[in-house]
């Protein structure tokens, strides 16, 4: 049936609603485009025939059906692409400007291109805020206290804090540090906050 493949794509989107980005389904996209091409060509023929032969209106419904299928395919395809872009956009906010390799693998070339363009736009916007720019990906939660106690979950070696001092992050060591320094590391999973 026409439009089945397009529905598959939508189903795929629906299944991955939990936030993971599945691999870019190059095959199905290609198949849909091919189907559209076939439908279009068939329609061309029929329209030509109808134009030529004014009395033969029998293929009008067929033309209509094909036309609707084409529209549907187009809509589903665009929805698929758009929703993936939105997921990728969310990844930028979650992981920062460098994506983990296993997510990159699931993106098509053009999506990677889109991601870097988005990154660029976002960075230039953030830089333009206020006198020195403001990183909007920080401070995602209202701060409760200035210092928090954290426990180091994996070995990370030495890191440098904003005031110049260095801390050695060894597995299972516990630290009491300013919240702003820890936020990024907590999001990366290196530190864990102790209640």
């Amino acid at each position: 049936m026409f439009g089945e493949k397009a529905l598959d794509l939508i189903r795929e989107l629906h299944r991955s609603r939990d936030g993971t980005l599945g691999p870019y389904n190059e095959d199905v996209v290609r198949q849909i485009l091919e189907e559209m091409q076939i439908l279009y060509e068939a329609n061309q023929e029929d329209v030509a025939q109808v134009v030529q032969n004014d009395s033969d209106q029998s293929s009008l419904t067929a033309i209509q059906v094909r036309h609707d299928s084409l529209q549907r395919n187009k809509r589903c395809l665009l929805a698929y692409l758009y929703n993936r872009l939105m997921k990728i956009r969310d990844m930028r906010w979650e992981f920062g400007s460098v994506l983990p390799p296993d997510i990159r693998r699931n993106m098509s070339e053009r999506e990677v291109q889109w991601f870097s363009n988005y990154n660029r736009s976002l960075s230039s916007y953030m830089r333009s805020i206020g006198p020195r720019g403001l990183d909007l990906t920080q401070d995602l939660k209202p701060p409760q206290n200035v210092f928090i106690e954290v426990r180091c979950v994996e070995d990370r070696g030495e890191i440098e804090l904003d005031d110049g001092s260095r801390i050695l992050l060894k597995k299972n060591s516990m630290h009491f540090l300013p919240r702003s320094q820890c936020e990024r590391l907590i999001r990366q999973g290196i530190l864990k906050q102790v209640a």
Partner: protein
Amino acid sequence: MLITDPVNDFFNKVKHERVLVMVALDVDALCACKILQALFKCDHVQYTLVPVINKSQLIKEFEEHKEQYKHIVLLNCGGNIDLLHILDPSEDISFYVIDSHRPIDLVNFFCEQQIYMLLKHDEDEIAAIPDYDSIYRDYDSDDEDSENDETEQVSKRHRFDEATLEKRRERKKWEEKRKEIIFDYEEFSFYGPSAAMLVYELAWKMSKDNNDQLWWAITGVADQFQNKKIGRDKYVSSVLELQGHMSRLNHRDEDDDNTKSVNSVKISFEHDLDLALYRHWSLFESLCHSLPTASAFKVWTNMGIKRLHQFLAEMGLPLTQCKQNYSFMETKMRDNLQSLVEESAEKFGLRNIKYQSFSAQCGYNHRLCASDAVYSVGALLEKLYSKDSQAAGENSNFVDSLDSLSRVTAPKMQDGLELAKLQLQAIKSSVSSFIDIGQILSYGPFLYTAVREGMPDYKYFGKPIFLNLFSHFLLNSYVRSLNKTKRERAKNLPLVICAPFNVDDGTTIIIGIPPLADESRKNLFGNAFLHAAERTKSRTSHESFDSSIITLKNEDLSKFLDALITIMS
């Protein structure tokens, strides 16, 4: 250098700096750590916590962190070793040592800068430390000259002057006296006041103490008593102080019922039964596994079990009740338990069945008494892991134990209690088999026994806290199991136990504990082990902060023991 004013000389100095806290792996140190954490959090002092299990780990962690921290606090470690010599720190690093191990290394005590010891202002303690002048002495220029001249062969008349000879003689006498003083001072190792107690007093002086911190201080002191690190009198005097603090912080309950919320920690003082974990176990199990009752009733014999049943019958407690979980016992039996036990105690030879203790209650949960907390945290610290996850597991023990102390009702505390039960069961079964087989031998100046690798639960024995608990249990039970004449002699004998430590490396761990009769708990094995090792050139490592626990290679064991016998005779 001794700190006289901990608030200004210690806390205010580190308040604006970043601090590295090195914590030894015993319950007292962990409690001190929790109190210190609370104080630091209050004042926004940035800190890093690092667990250290022995001297080499102390050195390693110091090497890794020395670039980043200028102020280092040592809890229950480093007091009895020469820190400057071992760590060789740069000039700007300061060490603040809160250690209950004694004797304090003299260099640490007399060093003017860099090493700061926080001690209780106990007259006796400080008096016990020798005078500065008897240990250190400036070289006189005359002495120096006389030294140099002696090497020359040129005979000058003034060398045989009375004055220089006199000086030389005096110097020799002084040096001999010095050796003697130091020897006396370092002969016995023992424990001073609990580190947790010291940190709690610091908090109190800053008026930042509260019930939670008091509970940690109580747990620290209870740890010392339970592991027989201090004798009863020292324990009682610490308890007296803690009582003072407790009544100060908890007295409001009496005036008005509604001042304290239900979910806050309430601490109460009581004369509690010295039964291990009895509130979390069944009464019968607890009686079988607690040191005083197990040794009095000799529960490893059938007669012993019968006597235990008799004891319970005397008290009027049906057996079914006693074998049930304590919380499901009938309330009127639970309420009368203490008085019943007291009455029947004398008849069955149970001495010191009651002791002074504290318990904490939070909300409507069951009460947790101090000794329960000590068992639980100790068990968590030494939790065993299967071979593959060994390294990963050991590191998280420290964090888990800290977690379990964080609240009285912490879920990890329950896990710890279960582990403690397993440990106590292992102890009891090992003790039973040892005494049955008669594996405890008298080597002359001390009693000796060895844990073989094939024994069940042998893995537990490689851990110091467990080994310590086991040794005391064993000594007590063994002495009780002897007849009257032998018992008198055995009471004055110390005990040495060796157990497999690391099967792959082929090492054994040895612990020595002082005799039962010695209330002061002064342990001479630290030095004895050192001498024995030197004499026989055994490959030993005296790594532990507690000098009476060492490890050595299996092959050197027998010659080491022979040397030990000779030294101690």
